[in-house]
Structures are given as C-alpha cells and as structure tokens.
C-alpha cells in the first residue's frame, strides 16, 4: 500500500486536471442518474406521502336531496370523522372563472379533523369567519393571488338560488357580494388541484353559515340544487365501507345515496403517476447505460495511460496487482469526488421534482434529500468506476503481455492498398489501431463511445417522437370521440338522444355517432366496478380503437378496457359475470378496447356492450350522452358550430344545445409532461458523446506524439498532420453513424413499444426524420469541430524535443 500511496500522491500532483475532468464527467452523469432515480421515487410516493399527512377521507357520500340528517350519520359506529360540504355551483367570484369554485364546507370539521391540510403559505381559515378563504397552489400561481389578497364573492338571492340562475345583467346574481381575504395556500387529498385545472378557492365554513339563505337555501324539498354531501373517514378503513353502505341504506331507505371510494380514485391516480415515475426511472437507467459507455471509455483511457507508465516500474519489482491498484487509485479518488458532487447536483436538481401534474399533490415541494438513493448512489458510482478501472487495468496488463505485434485494422490496410493519401492512412490507423508500447491508445472505447453517442441520441429522439405522436393524436389513447353532450343523468333524460343523434348523423364532418348510456356494473366477490357504455353498430358506428379481438356484435358479449381486464383477471375469450340492476349476467369477452374518457372512467377502464345487452343488465342509466367522431379532415370548431346549428334546425326545443370536446385523459397530460425528458436525455447523451470523442482525440495526439513527430521528420506537412486528426475524427463519426443510426432507431422503437404497451397507448412505430437527417451532418461537423484543437496541437508539435525525450 505504501507504493500505491506514493504513486497516488504523484498522480494527484501531476494529473489533477485530468482527474478533475474525470470527476466532473462522473458528477455530470451521476447527477442525471441520481436525480432521475430520486425524482422517480418522489413522483411515485407523492400521493402516499400526501395521504400520510392529511388524514384523508376514505369515502365521499353524495345525496340528491337535502333531507339526509348528517348528525345521525356522524353517530354511526363505523364513522370516525365526518364533514359536510355543498355541491354548490350557484355562486361565483367576480373576475374569476366558474371552474375555480370549490365546494363550500358547511361545518368546522372540514380541513380540521378530516383532510387536515398541508399549509404552504399563511394559515388555515378561522371556521367562524365569514370573510376568509384558502386557495390551492395552482390557483395562487395562475391568478397571482396569495395570502392577503382579496376576492369578491357574488351570491344569489334566495329566489335566484331556488331557480339556479341570476336575474341581473347577463345572468349575474344580485345577492350579497362579500369581500373574502385569502389567508392561506394549502392542499389536502380531496381539496387538491387537478391535472390541467386552474386551481380552487375554498371559502371558510363561516361563509355558508352567515349566508345560509343564499347558499344552502331552505331545508325543504323546495331546495332543488344545493344538497349537502359529506366526506367520511371510517373506523377500520375501507373494509368498513360495506357496513357503512348497509347502515345508510337501512337508515335512509328512500334516499338516493352515491358512495365513492376516494382511495380507489387515489389508487387510479397512483397508477397514472407510476407512468411518469417509470419514465423517469427509464430516463435514469438510459443515462446510466450511456454513462457506463461514455464515462467508461474516459476511465479506460486514463487507466491505460497510467498502466503504460507503470510498466516502466515492472523491472524494478512491481507486481501486476500493484500495477493494477496503482493505475486504478487515481480514478477511484476521482470517482468518489464525482459521486459526492453527484449527490450535491441531485440535491440541487430535486427542486424541479415532482414533474408536471404530480407537483399538485406534492406535500413537500422544493429541494429534498433522498438518503437511500444518495447513499446507495455514492456506493454504486464508486464501485462502477473502480470496477471499470480494474477491468481496464486488467485489459492493459493482458495487452502488455501479448507479443508486441499490433492489431491491424482492415480499413487501414485497405486504405494502404488503394494508395490513400498519407493523412487518411495515418488517421485511419490512429482511429482504428491501438498502437503498441507506451504510445498505445485503446481505440475500442472511443469507437464504442461514438456509436453509443449516436445510438443514444437517436434512440432518445425516436422515443420522444413516439411520445409526441401519442400526445398530438388523442386516438392513440382511444379518444375517438371528438364532441359529446349529456342528454340525461340518473335515469332521467332532459333531451332526446335519438333526435340529437339523427340531427347530426348526416353532417359531412361527422364520421360516427353513438347514443350511449352508461351504467356501473360490479363483479361478485370483487370490489371492482365496471363502467359500461352502450355501442351502436351500423355504418356510422364510432371507430372504437381495439387493441385485441373485436367489438361485441351479439347479446351477452362485451369488449373490456385493459385495466378492467386486469382488475377482473380475465382475458379475451373468457367469460365474466357482471351484475347491473337486474342481477348477474354471464358475458363473453370479445376484445380489448380503449374507452372514451368519462366522468366515472378513464380511457383504459370500462367496457362496451350492445344496447340490448345493457337493457338486460340495467333498468336505468347513470349518464346518457351523444358521442360524435369526426372525419380526419374536419375542423373541430367548424364541426362544433355546424352541429349546434343542425340541432337547432332539427330539434327546435334544443336550440342552443351543443356538443363539446370531452376532457382529455389525465394520461395525455402526463405523457405531455414527459415529452421533454427524452430530449433532455438526448442532449445529455450528445454532450457526453462529444466529451468522449473530444477526449479520445486529444489523448491520441498526446500519446502518439512520437509517431506524428517521426512522420513530420519524414516530410509530412503541418496541413497533412491536421488531416490525420481530421480523418481520425471523421472516421469515428462515420462509424458512430453507421452502427448508431440503425441501432438507435431500433432501441428507440423498442423502448417506446414497451412503454406504449404498458401505458397503454396504441403503438405506431416512431421515426424522427428530422433528427435522422440532422444527425449525419451534425455528427460529422461536431467531430471535425472537436478535431480543430487537437489537430492544431498535432501540427505544432516540437518535433526535435519529442524525438529527443521519447
């Protein structure tokens, strides 16, 4: 060890710059990888961390009347905590859109004993105050309104409340206009921002208490709109839901009560979040693999140089083991320094996580340490660097033991045979032959680096092309419904779906129309619920996206969405027993299809059945809607106007009724969130590849100075010397492109196919033509630009001095 210490001291003294550059390369790669892994963990755990902090309500209970006595429900043995709120849409804030209105709480429990909030700024409201509100972070950012700012509420008069509309100009309410002060920026599980949404403002329970006549209305059947609903936390958690359900039914036998399992919704959200986390993890792994190649070759070159130098000490009694350890010691120190810097970098980078929409549920925004990832990261980075260095040392040792005969390159031999100019000949040798003795430079790492660089960049851009294609084409998510409109809810139609459908069916921009009823079926012995849509067959049927099999075309057949198939543990061809209002039915699963994103289902949940199958399962419907798909050339706005006009013309009592684009699935937003990730990865890989090729060119000139000097003595001009380095650089780029382009395209498509299948999204082979077209000249130009400085150095070598000292 004394010798290794002595050698290390010399190395640090002489080569601190090279080791510093190596440490920075390790740090750059390590930062990206650790930030990616830590970010993925943070993304994946955001919801569970939020839930752990906020004591979330496990269920939300919605009623369609104001006669449920919530105080009785509070006393149920299953209930641990309960808070009530208004499903109130009949008030507004001056100057703010309607979709920022949060449901006003009607008791002091909300956000106190249930859904205890995370307060980012300011404080929680005083529940007794009638002039305080809290807002969510997205609201605060979007409307630039934070703690201390005020908003003005516009409340209906009791009369306006009764009829659900304002009597002032443009339908404005004419009731009280209390000034409300924002006292805090908070979030909880239920009262949180939504993907793509504008955020919420929640007024204190004191507001509903003071303005009860304007917000709640009379406690009688005359109140048609503002029903109190409740958030409930159960003793015994979700397992107590059936008992609670039974007790509600027994206590309020005539009430229409809908109980939503909030945790189910969180689980769905969690599943969606997993996609982003997986993308980040894939990003980190891709960066790690690239770093292994690209930083690895810098390590290999450093160790090879040190090994060649240490060979001088072999006759003085240095063992091969000592040689290896000494050659690796400096690199290990650089690796450790790089690993520590990586942790600092990853900590600083943690401020950007969680990415995209997941940020809305992050309870601890800002910089964050992840001790598990950071400590493991330091260990893994150091081990990888040391293992890479040891392998390089062993390789150098083995090469030194071999006879001095150099490995000849076929390209260089061919260049010689065809009488290629000297710079081309020598440049080809420098690029493809390692040389011998102390001037030997391993060429495989440089070649591998060039190939890995091109491969990585193209794979990243190809993957990115797949992501962008899916975001820009909703049909990849099965969203073939361009416009839709509700014509009924809870078994009651307020418009005739058939008339609306007939009115729009013949419009030239319309390609498909579906009169769709929605019901929720369950599977016996499972908590899984299945949202079923009816599907109209015929010449103008919706072009539903099938991933496998076919749509139902007979009674007792069903096509199910991927997540539902998984939940029910069935496959295409199996039978599944589902229960609607009328009892269980055996259905044959005919296909795996994507669904329209709906209020009760995501695009990968639910199933299609024929109307007759539906009728045999349900007496009623949850929602009734008309769905329309458009021809590829149709303009959405024009089609929407044409549809509204056609409905007005053919269904006069529905004049003014129109269809609107359905909400995009949250997965589209998530995919949109990660669109930039592969581009960043491509940039990172490109940077590493440039550093690797630049380093290899500079090293080659330094290590092969004697060969260059000898050639200069033999008559090679400065220009020809520059040509040697330019040829070397160009060959590296050409080889990188030859192998990297096809491999990168294949890798990018394979990764995208895997992600598309697991998302699920319809896989369309991506090709980033622009990236491919630009990569060829780009790589050649970059390689030649990188060659400028080493070429200049080679041309200016002090020939006499080198030949004297070598």
């Amino acid at each position, binding site marked *: 060890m004394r010798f290794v210490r002595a*050698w290390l001291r*010399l190395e640090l003294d002489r080569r601190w710059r090279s080791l510093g550059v190596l440490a920075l390369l390790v740090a750059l790669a390590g930062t990206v990888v650790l930030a990616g892994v830590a970010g993925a963990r943070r993304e994946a755990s955001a919801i569970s961390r939020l839930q752990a902090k906020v004591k979330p309500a496990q269920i939300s209970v919605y009623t369609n009347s104001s006669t449920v006595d919530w105080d009785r429900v509070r006393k149920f043995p299953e209930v641990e905590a309960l808070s009530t709120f208004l499903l109130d849409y009949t008030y507004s804030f001056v100057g703010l859109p309607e979709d920022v209105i949060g449901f006003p709480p009607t008791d002091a429990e909300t956000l106190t004993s249930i859904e205890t909030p995370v307060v980012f700024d300011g404080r929680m409201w005083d529940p007794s105050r009638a002039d305080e509100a809290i807002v969510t972070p997205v609201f605060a950012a979007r409307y630039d309104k934070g703690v201390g700012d005020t908003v003005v509420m516009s409340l209906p008069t009791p009369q306006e409340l009764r009829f659900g509309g304002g009597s002032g100009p443009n339908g404005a309410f004419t009731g009280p206009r209390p000034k409300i002060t924002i006292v805090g920026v908070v979030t909880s599980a239920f009262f949180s921002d939504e993907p793509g949404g504008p955020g919420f403002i929640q007024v204190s329970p004191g507001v509903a208490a003071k303005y009860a006549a304007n917000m709640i209305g009379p406690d009688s059947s005359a109140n048609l709109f503002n029903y109190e609903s409740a958030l409930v936390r159960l003793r015994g958690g979700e397992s107590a839901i059936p008992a609670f359900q039974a007790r509600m039914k027994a206590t309020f036998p005539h009430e229409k009560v809908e109980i939503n399992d909030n945790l189910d919704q969180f689980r769905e959200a969690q599943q969606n979040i997993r996609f982003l986390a997986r993308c980040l993890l894939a990003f980190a792994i891709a960066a790690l693999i690239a770093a292994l190649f690209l930083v690895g070759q810098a390590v290999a070159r450093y160790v090879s140089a040190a090994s060649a130098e240490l060979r001088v000490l072999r*006759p*003085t009694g240095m063992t091969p083991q000592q040689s290896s350890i000494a050659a690796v010691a400096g690199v290990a120190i650089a690796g450790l320094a790089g690993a520590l810097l990586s942790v600092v970098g990853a900590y600083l980078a943690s401020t950007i996580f969680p990415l995209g929409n997941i940020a809305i549920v992050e309870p601890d925004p800002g910089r964050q340490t992840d001790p598990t990832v950071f400590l493991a990261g330091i260990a893994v980075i150091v081990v990888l660097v040391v293992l890479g260095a040891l392998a390089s040392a062993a390789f150098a040792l083995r090469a030194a033991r071999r006879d001095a005969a150099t490995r000849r390159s076929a390209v260089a031999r061919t260049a010689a045979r065809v009488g290629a100019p000297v710079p081309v000949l020598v440049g080809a040798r420098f690029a493809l032959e390692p040389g011998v003795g102390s001037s030997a430079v391993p060429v495989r790492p440089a070649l591998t680096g060039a190939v890995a660089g091109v491969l990585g960049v193209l794979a990243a851009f190809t993957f990115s092309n797949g992501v962008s294609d899916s975001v820009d084409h909703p049909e990849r998510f099965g969203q073939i419904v361009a416009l839709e409109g509700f014509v009924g809810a809870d078994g009651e139609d307020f418009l005739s779906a058939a008339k609306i459908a007939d009115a729009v069916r013949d419009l030239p921009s319309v390609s498909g129309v579906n009169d769709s009823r929605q019901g929720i079926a369950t599977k016996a012995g499972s908590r899984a619920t299945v949202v079923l849509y009816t599907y109209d067959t015929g010449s103008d049927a919706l072009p539903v996206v099938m991933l496998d099999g076919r749509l139902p075309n007979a009674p007792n057949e069903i096509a199910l969405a991927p997540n539902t198939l998984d939940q029910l543990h069935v496959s295409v061809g199996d039978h599944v027993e589902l229960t609607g209002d009328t009892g269980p039915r055996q259905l044959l699963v005919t296909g795996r299809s994507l669904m329209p994103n709906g209020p009760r289902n995501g695009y990968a949940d639910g199933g299609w059945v024929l109307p007759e199958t539906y009728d045999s399962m349900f007496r009623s419907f949850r929602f009734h809607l008309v769905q329309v798909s458009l021809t590829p050339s149709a303009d959405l706005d024009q089609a929407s106007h044409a549809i509204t006009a056609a409905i007005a013309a053919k269904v006069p009592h529905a004049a003014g009724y129109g269809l609107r684009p359905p909400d995009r699935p949250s997965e589209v937003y998530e995919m949109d969130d990660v669109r930039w990730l592969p581009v960043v990865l491509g940039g990172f890989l490109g940077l590493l590849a440039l550093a690797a090729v630049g380093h290899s060119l500079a090293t080659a000139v330094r290590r092969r100075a004697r060969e260059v000097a000898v050639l200069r003595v033999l008559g090679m001009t400065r220009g020809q010397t520059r040509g040697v380095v330019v040829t070397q650089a160009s060959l590296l780029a050409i080889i990188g492109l030859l192998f990297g382009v096809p491999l990168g395209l294949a890798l990018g498509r394979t990764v995208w196919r895997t992600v598309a299948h697991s998302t699920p999204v319809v896989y369309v082979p991506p090709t980033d033509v622009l990236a491919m077209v630009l990569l060829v000249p780009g790589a050649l130009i970059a390689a030649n630009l990188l060659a400028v400085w080493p070429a200049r150095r080679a041309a200016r070598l002090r020939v006499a001095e080198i030949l004297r000292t070598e």
Partner: protein
Amino acid sequence: MTESISAAVATGTLAEGTPAVRVRGVRRTFTAELAPVRALRGVDLEVSAGEFVAVMGPSGCGKSTLLNVVAGLDRVDDGTVEVAGERVDGRDENWLAKFRRHHIGIVFQFFNLLDGVSAMDNIVLPAILGGMRRRQAEARARELLDLLGLGDRAQQVPAVLSGGQRQRLAIARALVNSPTLLLADEPTGALDSAGGIEVLELFRRLHGGGQTIIMVTHSQDVAAGADRQIVLHDGQVASDTSGAGAERRG
C-alpha cells in the same frame, strides 16, 4: 498463484559459494510472420558473485533475450535459470516481481524512466516497492543521487537531463534496493563517448565495491572494461574469456 519466497532470497543475501547466476541449456524461440526466430539455442553460463561480465555479439544474437531471461522479464522454452541460488524459470509474475526487488537491478539502453516525475521520485518509487518507508526511501535516493553526481537535479524531470545524466539516474534507480545482480542492456548505447565513459567508470566503481554486473554491449571498448567477456553468436555462447589470460569456457 504466487509462490512463497524464502527469507534469504527476499532480503537479498547470498550464501557463500553460490553463483550469482547459473544458466543451463536455455532455449527461447519467438514466433514471427515469416519463420520462428530462435533467439537462444542452448545457452550455458555461470557468473560468480562479484564478477563484472560483458556479453557481446552481433545484433540478433540473443544478448538482450539472455538478459531478459535472467531478469525474469521473459520466459524460457527450455533449460533452467538460477539467480542467487533460486530458480527463476517457471515462476509466476508476482514471485518474479518480488524477487527482482531485492536481487536484480536493471539498466536499459533507453533509460525507461518515468518521464513525468522527478529524478528523486524515479528512485523513491522502486525503493518503496522494495519495502522502504517513504522517508527512508528519500534518504536512500538522495544518497544515490549524490553518489552519482545528480544531487542538484533531484527535483528535475528526466526530460531536462542529458543522456549521461539520465543513464546515471537509471543506474541509481537500479541500485536503490542494493540488488545482488546489476543487469545492464547496452547502457552506453544511447550516449555519446563522454557519457559512455562516465557510465563505464561508474560500473567499475560499483564492481570495485563487490557488485555483480552483467552488461550487454556492442562495443569492444566498453566490454574491455569488464573482467570477463562472453560472446554470443546465433543464440549460443561462442567464446568466454576472462581478463588477459583468457580461459575458454564454452
């Protein structure tokens, strides 16, 4: 697997009457593109402790191969090689490395110094390899640099030294662990005549102090400085003469 080295060998002591070098029937053939090169074809040689032997012969006769075989830097195809009473043929690299630390110092025609490190460190590193602590190694290096007239060049890198100075530095490095045997491969070959004389004088002084030396040289004048001259021809010992009254040995 590394074989163990006896305590006597590890410390560099040599039992009385034991020849410093004994080579018996050594053969070594290299593969080449056109035909195999038979560098050594049955060489027998014995060198006593304290002898100064010059090995001569035309280019390609096997001089350097013989030196490398004795140093354990090259393997033999056949025959045996003993140094300080220990067989060195057939040993693994670790054993040979540790053996060289105490028994063999080597001087090369082109110095083989570490270009990027100071003259002092060029000597200190092998001393540490030989088991000395850093301070002890530095003291020993300083002593040798002074002895060889390089005391004022301790912190300079080899590139700024003259050829003669670099070869003296290489000799100092070879001597740092007080080896049983000093091997020199054309030590004056890269030097001008003054440098050559300088090195030869140094070898004489070392020989006067009891150092066993085997020196490969082309030069008759340089070889004349040794007290025994061996001539190789086509991989075999063609003549072996000692001083004026040359005694033929093979």
